[in-house]
């Protein structure tokens, strides 16, 4: 059977053995990261058999109300289960409640809600802790002595952004020799990321390190540093694992990447939901873990599985 097993529109059935229709909602569509989540979700659906995944999301992570509406529309549609990543922990809490009230089980991936109902699991990594880890990595790469560092965030005011920024700053606080001299947003646009990085480099010719907090930010920052002829001289710690980011790690432009396991999130979300629906298995949260990808470990089997996930050999252990 294919991934998209249609059930002829009669998705209201709760027959445990019958076909299942699950809604899987990312924070936003349009990034490599979320596509990997989708691949994981579809892999789980395929393996379980007779499960349809309806993948739909808003176009920007900031469209919180749009996501509330979307979840509500899925409740209306009476899908069998909803797996989603909350764009905002507080704002989506009522949406989760409404789904539960309509007897639709919910599983969260990547980002949960607050409060998080006890019967709603969360399959995620801790953004804050990972960002703190990234700051430590940056300090290690730069070594002792005073250094100027900069931060390229993506969307001020969005929760993921806030968590990564806070985590990174908390990490920096442990290293008094690192001075944060610039913090500018990329608005998740590579051109914009490149522009602000160029300007930060101009203002701080002695800049030694950059932490870029998501895919477009990393790519833009790397472009700017390369264009300024400072490749290798400015340490970049990035996030996510788009192909050009991996290439950057290989070429030494990027020192390290914080890589989550989006495949696992998608996979767990659907897999546990299906088991819950079919076997009444209780839903329990799990940490999907992060990996720090560097030039040294990039070819290890474990990292390869995370970077190039495939349903034949899913990185879900």
């Amino acid at each position: 059977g294919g991934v998209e097993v249609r059930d002829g529109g009669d998705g209201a059935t709760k027959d445990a053995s019958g076909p299942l229709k699950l809604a899987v909602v990312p924070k936003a569509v349009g990034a490599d990261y979320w596509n990997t989540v989708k691949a994981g979700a579809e892999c789980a659906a395929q393996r379980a058999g007779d499960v349809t995944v309806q993948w739909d999301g808003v176009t920007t992570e900031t469209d919180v109300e749009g996501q509330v509406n979307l979840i509500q529309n899925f409740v209306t549609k009476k899908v069998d289960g909803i797996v989603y990543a909350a764009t905002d922990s507080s704002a989506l809490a009522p949406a989760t409640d409404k789904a539960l009230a309509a007897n639709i089980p919910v599983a969260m991936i990547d980002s949960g809600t607050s409060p998080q109902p006890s019967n709603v699991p969360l399959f995620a990594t801790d953004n804050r802790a990972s960002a703190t880890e990234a700051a430590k990595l940056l300090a290690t790469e730069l070594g002792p002595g005073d250094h100027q560092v900069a931060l390229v965030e993506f969307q001020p005011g969005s929760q993921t952004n806030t968590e990564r920024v806070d985590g990174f700053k908390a990490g920096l606080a442990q290293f008094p020799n690192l001075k944060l001299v610039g913090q500018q947003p990329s608005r998740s646009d590579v051109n914009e990321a490149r522009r602000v990085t160029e300007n930060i480099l101009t203002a701080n010719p002695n800049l030694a390190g950059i932490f870029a907090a998501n895919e477009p930010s990393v790519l833009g920052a790397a472009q700017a540093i390369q264009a300024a002829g400072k490749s290798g001289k400015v340490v970049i710690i990035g996030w996510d694992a788009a192909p050009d980011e991996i290439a950057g790690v290989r070429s030494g432009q990027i020192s390290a990447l914080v890589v989550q396991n989006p495949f696992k999130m998608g996979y767990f979300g659907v897999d546990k939901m299906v088991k819950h629906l079919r076997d009444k298995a209780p839903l329990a949260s799990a940490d999907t873990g992060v990996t720090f990808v560097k030039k040294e470990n990039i070819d290890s089997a474990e990292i390869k599985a995370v970077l190039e996930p495939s349903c034949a050999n899913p990185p879900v252990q």
Partner: protein
Amino acid sequence: MSTVEATAGSQRGEFSDWVRERISHAVSELTAATALVVLFIALSFASPYFLTADNLFNIGAQTAVIAIIATAQTMVIITKGIDLSVGSVAALAGVLGAMVVRDLGFSLWAATVVAIGVGALAGLLNGLLVTVARIPPFIATLGTMSVGRGLVFIFSGAVGVYGLPRSFQLLGNGEILGIPFAVVITVLVAVGVAFLLSQTRFGQYTYAMGSNLEAARRSGIGVRRHLTGVYVLAGVLVGLGGMIAASRVNSGQPNYGISLELDVIAAAVIGGASLFGGQGRIVGTIIGAFLIALVRNGAVLLDISIHYQQVIVGLIIWAAVYFDQYRRRRLEARG
């Protein structure tokens, strides 16, 4: 050939004139309304979940904020203006409304007053920029949009305002007799503004200023005062809308309303308003807002991905306005 009939249009009786006028007035809305009805029927057949009270109320609640802010936008558009700052101002109002609840312990109603006040101030600023500083509305409100968003970030520290009491949700998620509160407010706002525009002197001046500002001025209308008034009133509604949006998501979201202006302008124009001023009615705008909402709702029910949704929304916008223009031309050309 030598006799001349005297049957001019003016002699055909008052009632039939009145009927014809109503029809010609309704034309611009008719197309959008027809599209709305067609879409409604199509969706009823296409999805078993569409025609349920729950879903319809959901659509109503989802569209409430857009409809209220589109109403505000319509007033501004009628004056030949445009308000690009609606998204920022709604966010500012929502965030400040949430902050006074969280930090100062205001009640929901007091917070709503604060949000409305924020909107009114922003509207006053827009109005003064347009009338006193004589900056064209597009630029005046573009500036307010930028400044407003900056202020939201500065006030909120670029972090959502959380930790609100459950009561904060009442405005956006509460119900009266099973009808979402937000829907009730929307209806009140729409009816009120429609009445204001069509039946009062304020409305008359609004159309007059949009149609020919110089003529309005020479007619002794205090155009500065009235134009500023329109912007303030629009700001009030935008503030209210921002508060409802915040209440719906139980938090103040600094990123709320990015590119909201395009949605509400689209609603107004689909509903027959002209960006060149002097034309536009609230009933059309509301229909336009629901048309867009219905497309979005239907797309989810029918499992159409967001990418195709965007294509479809574009096509519907084109189609609605095309047929509207076509009808108007036909009506003007042939009767």
